[in-house]
């Protein structure tokens, strides 16, 4: 019991510290920290709609968080979740536009599969380069984000462009593809797509604990050389890790494409792929931890939305500072190690 508590202590302290710092800085602007905190909580959880929007922001974060964690378990840093998600979303929209005749239960499943496949392909490329050529996955995945943005922009504007629209977006997917939002959350676009992210979270946990491939993958992450001497195919594990990581990130665009807008919109992501890194770190790579961390960042994304509205002086920039400070304190591993050695 005390073990669990100890493990939970650091993330909780990190979040509390980040929030306290952020609120302190925001309070310098003239509003009391209490008012800001209240506005934050109210905006994130104040009504069924608000809570729904928090969940809507959280669902992709669970997936990008899992994607980053999948890489980390194998000792690889996947910074390409943003691009993998973008291409996954584009693929889902493309299938929805290209095959309008598919009947209902099959249609969303097909779109989900396409999204996974597109993301997995985008993850497999750096995975293969890492396994066979030894190229550094950080550099490759970062650069692949830009290529993905270019590819997405080409297909959006020249292949699937919505006619007469002023926005850069594709036309709508066929109605059979839409996953309708739960009525409980009023008009917030929370749908079964949220459950998809929870299922994937459970699936990855099982993969790591119950399968040989998952075990090998973690062994490679723990000590590459030892794994090699133990007879594990290191390259194969690395390729597998980044392919899965890409596929999972590819699914992160599903709530947006199939539930929120029904189309692919360029720039729909407020940075889910990069926030996924913070989610994976805060969640300590565990499924439950990642879900909790995604909920926190979703709440921050939604919570800071009304700050400008409900306080006198807080602006959009300050809400970004607030988010950044939480991320910073979460990832300040050295600080926590120092605290532990000193006191605990």
């Amino acid at each position: 019991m005390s073990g669990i508590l100890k493990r939970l202590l650091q993330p909780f302290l990190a979040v509390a510290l980040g929030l306290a710092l952020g609120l302190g800085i925001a309070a310098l602007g003239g509003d009391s920290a209490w008012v800001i905190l209240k506005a934050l909580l109210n905006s994130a959880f104040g009504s069924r709609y608000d809570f729904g929007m928090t969940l809507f922001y959280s669902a992709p974060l669970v997936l990008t968080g899992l994607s980053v964690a999948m890489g980390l378990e194998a000792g690889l840093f996947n910074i390409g979740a943003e691009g993998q998600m973008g291409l996954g979303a584009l693929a889902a929209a493309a299938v929805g536009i290209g095959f309008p005749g598919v009947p209902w239960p099959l249609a969303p499943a097909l779109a989900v599969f396409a999204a996974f496949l597109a993301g997995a392909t985008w993850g497999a490329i750096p995975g293969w380069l890492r396994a066979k050529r030894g190229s550094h996955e950080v550099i490759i995945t970062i650069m692949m984000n830009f290529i993905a943005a270019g590819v997405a922009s080409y297909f959006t504007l020249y292949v699937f462009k919505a006619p007469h629209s002023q926005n850069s977006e594709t036309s709508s997917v066929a109605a059979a593809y839409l996953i309708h939002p739960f009525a409980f959350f009023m008009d917030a676009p929370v749908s079964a797509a949220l459950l998809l992210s929870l299922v994937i979270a459970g699936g990855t946990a099982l993969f790591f604990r119950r399968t040989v491939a998952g075990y090998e993958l973690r062994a490679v992450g723990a000590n590459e050389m030892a794994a090699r001497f133990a007879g594990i195919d290191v390259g194969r594990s690395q390729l597998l890790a980044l392919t899965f990581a890409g596929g999972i990130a590819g699914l992160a665009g599903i709530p947006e494409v199939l539930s929120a807008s029904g189309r692919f919109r360029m720039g729909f992501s407020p940075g889910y792929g990069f926030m996924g890194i913070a989610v994976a770190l805060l969640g300590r790579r565990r499924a439950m931890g990642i879900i909790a961390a995604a909920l926190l960042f979703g709440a921050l994304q939604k919570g800071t939305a009304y700050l400008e509205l409900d306080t006198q002086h807080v602006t959009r920039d300050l809400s970004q500072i607030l988010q950044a400070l939480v991320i910073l304190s979460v990832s300040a591993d050295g600080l926590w190690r120092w605290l532990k050695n000193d006191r605990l």
Partner: protein
Amino acid sequence: MTRINQLKAAGRVLGLFALVLALLGALAGKCVYASEFKVGMVLDKGGKEDKSFNNAAYDGFKHAKAELKITGKVIEASDDNSYEPLLRAMASRDFDLIIAIGFAQAEAVKRVSKAYPSKHFVIVDAEVEAPNVRTLMFREHEGSFLVGALAALVSHTGKIGFIGGMDGPLIRRFEMGYIAGAKYINPRVKVISNFVGVSVDAWNNPAKGKELAIAQYSEGGDIIFGAAGASGNGVFDAAEEEGRLVIGVDSNQNWVKPGHVLTSMLKRVDVAVFDTIRAAQSGQFAGGIFYYGLANSGIDYAMDQYNEALVPKAARARIEELKKAIIDGKIRVPDYYEKK
């Protein structure tokens, strides 16, 4: 025993007292709020400081705040999915009028205005048909016609340029009016036309804007109309470096590079926003589409101390003539929106 009773009684009295005070406070609060008109404005991702479109909307709000004594908030959206929650949040609070800036918010306004039929909404640059929504549309082609005509009058080379931001119906409308105006003055004028890009980033790529402008100047163009948001800053730089002329857009940009800015095509979002707030405050809010053009000064061209030396008197007189002719309906400016 009695002591406890006394305490209880005192507590009750105090409680009652507090209740009355709270009620009074609530009533007083209500009275104060009832006399105030509260306006909420959601800007698109460009934000307050874009020196152009959103900036003009924000100016309209500030003007109304100073002159009409309204209260309210101007909020910048953080991502594409935050328009709707922000509009909803305003509708569910005590805002009397909610203004959405930019066509990207059309879908959100459509849905929120339906969910809150008793609230009044305004959207700029996109048509939303609902009884409680007022759409503000600008006849950008009319102003573009005038600056095109002026460019043709002032040009020495007979070649002028156009640089648009993100290729789309809105900017095609600017281009079409500009070319029509230039050809009206000089049917043999050559217009070189380029767009910075096809995505949202095209509004904010000054380097590409400058590159295109330099290319157009070296092809012999001597005046460029830059309708490209923040990418236009690159066009201004190119004009200064090459010693040529440029035409600004949306806000009055004559001051940006004095001596190089022939004029600016004004899209008075500030005026439209101010008018709308004033009408709504005095209980005159009406839904439907409201057009702003040359006739009601929603569209215009800028003349001030920075450019009066650049525009010859005869040219100015000719442009005023054309302006009157358009207002009177004697000249029909082609409209890209009608073409499609």
